[in-house]
């Protein structure tokens, strides 16, 4: 029964050489996915919202609804 002598050295190095590039690549992929899946759409959504936003109109809507304490709704 003569088995091959197992690897005695360089085990950590071998593991790192295999896993570190994968780890870096996956991290970059995760960051890119978050950027283009979440942050860019979010920035676009905010930009689009404020393009159409009429502040005075919305303020008056809120005022009439009665949510402010500094200005009461117009009328009684």
């Amino acid at each position, binding site marked *: 029964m003569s088995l091959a002598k197992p690897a005695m050295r360089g085990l950590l190095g071998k593991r790192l050489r295999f896993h570190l590039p994968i780890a870096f690549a996956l991290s970059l992929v995760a960051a890119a996915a978050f950027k283009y899946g979440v942050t860019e759409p*979010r920035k676009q*959504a*905010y930009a689009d*919202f404020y393009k159409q936003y009429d502040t005075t109109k*919305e303020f008056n*809507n*809120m005022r009439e*609804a*009665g*949510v402010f304490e500094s200005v009461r709704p117009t009328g009684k």
Partner: protein
Amino acid sequence: MCMLHLTTGRVGCLLSKQVVVALTSSGARMSSHGHHEVSDSVDMSQPMYWDRLDTPLPDRPWKDVLDSTDKSLKQKEKGPWTALSKEEKIALYRLKFNHTYPEMKRPSHEWKTVIGGMFIFFGITGLVVFWQGHYVYPPQPHTFGEEWQAKQVQRMLDMQINPIEGFSAQWDYKNKQWK
């Protein structure tokens, strides 16, 4: 029924002084020691044997009280090992070690006890929680009522809470309904 499986021979490493002497169903462990009483305590001043995956070579061999056949085998071991037959080599291994690595790693039924115990305690906790909900809790605040909650939602929509990606973004202000 599966009983709680106390892992045999689980001794701490040499830095810790805790030794749990297991109650095995075979009892063969105790019988092959010449220097061990029937009591549960282990003499920590003597070299110990252990079966551990992470610390492979114990301080003493498994069987140190050898009968005459074992003694003659140990004498033969002092010569060239090529003279030993396969059975003799295995017998020498078994003198030195109790369990092989696959035997140490053998799966047990302990998980069933663990999962069963978990569910039992979940159930008991559920009963306790139910009883407490009935007998202990004070009445709910008035702000939990249906009417108040509806008024609250209306106020949040009036204030345009999170109008871009959140709460009010889901409300259709023109048609006065949820999108």
